[in-house]
């Protein structure tokens, strides 16, 4: 009940004309950028980050939240109409979305199903966030520096060890993010560190140009290979009226959307398992339930299951982000960086110290969900035109956004230089199969990890025992150790299986 009252108070913050306008703008931009194949939510949020500089912190974060959220909706559009997922969570949407649009000649209904399922999944996720977020924060209040160190270690290792096929590369890249973040000033004493006598490096590596380069400019470099790719477009003329679902179809959509909404939220709360995992799991679970049409042939249930799950996961990921300051994905890391840029420190104290902001943001997610649904339905007639913009024209436009965005956040060409260097480096990393998401996550979390780890060592007088004698820390450290050893055990098990198979063949 208390949460409900606080949520109503949050609505009084978010429902101002400026905040509604910002959320609306965020929804439109996020949908368009999310729909563009090859950009994705990570690059989309990073590229649009400088636009939030115009607003006060609350409005800026509301716009950022709407951007992030609508990006999830947008990813499904190109998956359904072009069979090219706008981002990785939409991969599963293409399995049924494209056949429904192409073979069954019902592209409008496929889009409408995706939009409705996204809305239902997102609503479930935000409702759970309303209760889980403060509860998690209350639990987090019991955390001292040693517990926070363990939680942050889990957050960093879970994404670098579990995401991607090569844990060693994940660790290297995580360490790179930490070292880059340590340049500039020491977090506790404020003394200069790793500035190499350079005036610019004294202030550290600026976050926004670094992110824009790593995920935006590097994406443009890769995008050039896609300019000649011929896609199978849906020729049908789309209209809102012709896209509306029948009562029967809506009834088919509802159970998988609710089921995936609950599952997706749970997945979203876990560190390292974001919207993509949610979407995959939602679809996998749907396979165990009855669908009117076979999954993979254009089934309403298939689209609903993965779309509801990925939007619910996106909402669920806000719980650890706000309550503990731990993002579950690269996009979450960009969002956290944005929050910190505005001087806000997500963590257990956020709900106590900044209730207007925390509840304003949660209530704005409800608002963004409704606004995004309205925009997503309203945009249906224009989607074929938006998606038919040739990639060759997008390359110079995105390059310009990268350059101007980086300059605007630093008011100096140093920002543009950081963007270019991190973009070139990010391109080489992607080419050589180094994942960039763990680097962004560690770059954002590193200052927090360092200050907590040092405080823990000060308390213990340099003894490691502090991490193994306190009950909560011990449990968290065991989880951390499991994450580290899991890929090694997995590798050993798969080697043993292969050996057994070979010996059987012989």
């Amino acid at each position, binding site marked *: 009940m208390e949460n409900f009252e606080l949520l109503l108070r949050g609505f009084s913050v978010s429902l101002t004309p400026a905040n509604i306008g910002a959320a609306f703008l965020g929804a439109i931009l996020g949908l368009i950028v999310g729909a563009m194949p090859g950009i994705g939510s990570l690059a989309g949020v990073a590229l649009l980050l400088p636009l939030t500089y115009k607003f006060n912190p609350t409005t800026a974060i509301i716009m950022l939240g709407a951007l992030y959220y609508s990006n999830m909706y947008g990813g499904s559009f190109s998956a359904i109409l072009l069979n090219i997922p706008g981002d990785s969570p939409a991969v599963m949407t293409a399995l049924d979305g494209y056949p429904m649009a192409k073979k069954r000649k019902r592209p409008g209904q496929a889009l409408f199903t995706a939009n409705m399922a996204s809305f239902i999944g997102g609503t479930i996720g935000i409702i759970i966030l309303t209760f889980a977020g403060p509860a998690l924060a209350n639990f987090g209040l019991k955390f001292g520096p040693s517990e926070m160190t363990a939680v942050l270690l889990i957050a960093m290792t879970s994404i670098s060890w579990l995401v991607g096929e090569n844990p060693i590369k994940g660790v290297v890249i995580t*360490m790179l993010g930490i070292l880059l973040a340590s340049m500039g000033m020491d977090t506790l004493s404020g003394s200069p560190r790793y500035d190499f006598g350079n005036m610019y490096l004294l202030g550290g590596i600026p976050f926004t140009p670094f992110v824009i380069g790593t995920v935006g400019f590097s994406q443009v470099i890769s995008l050039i290979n896609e300019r000649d790719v011929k896609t199978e477009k849906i020729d049908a003329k789309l209209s809102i009226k012709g896209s509306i679902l029948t009562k029967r179809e809506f009834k088919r959509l509802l159970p998988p959307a609710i089921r995936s909404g609950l599952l997706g939220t749970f997945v979203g709360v876990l560190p390292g398992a974001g919207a993509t995992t949610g979407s995959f799991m939602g679809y996998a679970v749907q396979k165990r339930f009855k669908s009117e049409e076979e999954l993979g042939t254009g089934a309403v249930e298939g689209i609903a299951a993965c779309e509801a799950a990925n939007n619910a996961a996106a909402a669920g990921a806000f719980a650890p982000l706000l309550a503990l300051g731990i993002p579950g994905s690269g996009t979450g890391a960009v969002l956290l960086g944005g929050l910190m840029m505005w001087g806000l420190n997500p963590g257990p104290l956020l709900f106590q110290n900044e209730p207007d902001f925390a509840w304003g943001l949660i209530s704005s997610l409800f608002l963004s969900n409704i606004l995004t649904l309205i925009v997503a339905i309203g945009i249906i007639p224009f989607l074929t035109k938006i998606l038919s913009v040739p990639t060759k024209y997008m390359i110079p*436009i995105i390059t310009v956004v990268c350059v101007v965005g980086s300059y605007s956040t630093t008011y100096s060409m140093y920002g543009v230089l950081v963007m270019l260097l991190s973009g*070139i480096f990010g391109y080489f990393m992607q080419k050589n199969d180094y994942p960039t998401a763990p680097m962004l996550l560690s770059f954002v979390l590193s200052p927090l990890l360092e200050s907590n780890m040092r405080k823990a060592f*000060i308390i213990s007088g340099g003894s490691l025992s502090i991490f193994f004698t306190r009950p909560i820390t011990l449990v968290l450290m065991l989880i951390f150790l499991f994450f580290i050893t899991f890929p090694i055990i997995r590798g050993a098990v798969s080697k043993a299986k292969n050996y057994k198979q070979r010996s059987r063949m012989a």
Partner: protein
Amino acid sequence: MTSSITKRILPLIFVVMGLIFAVLGFTQFGFWSDANGPMPGFFPSIMAIVMVLSGIASFIQSLKDTEAVEYKPDEFLVIAGGIGIFVATFIIGLVPTIFLYVILWLKLVEKSSWKPILIVLAIVAFITIGVFGMWLGIQFPMGIFENIL
């Protein structure tokens, strides 16, 4: 153009970087003080050592990896374009450089006709001058002309 050299060079870069950070951390910024506990070099030095070790492991992995990475010349054109914008900004300023870049890119690289070039220029002008210049109030650098003016 295919190459497997970068697969070996990248981990070596990480190892060297880790070594530099570890040495500087231990020697210049301090690791541990009996009075104050961990010093500014404490955390980055530990992480740098982990990076050196994982970099070495990654290098060993790369020796077993025979698959080459494919680099396409067009990809380097995008990088050249970005560097070109950076350099030219110091001479003619950011906004004219951006317009020049769009025209040169679309005309020379993409061989586009003038109609789409003008449309893209209009979009770029809206983003640069409209959104960033007028709405966000960003003052763009004018290059050496700034000094002359």
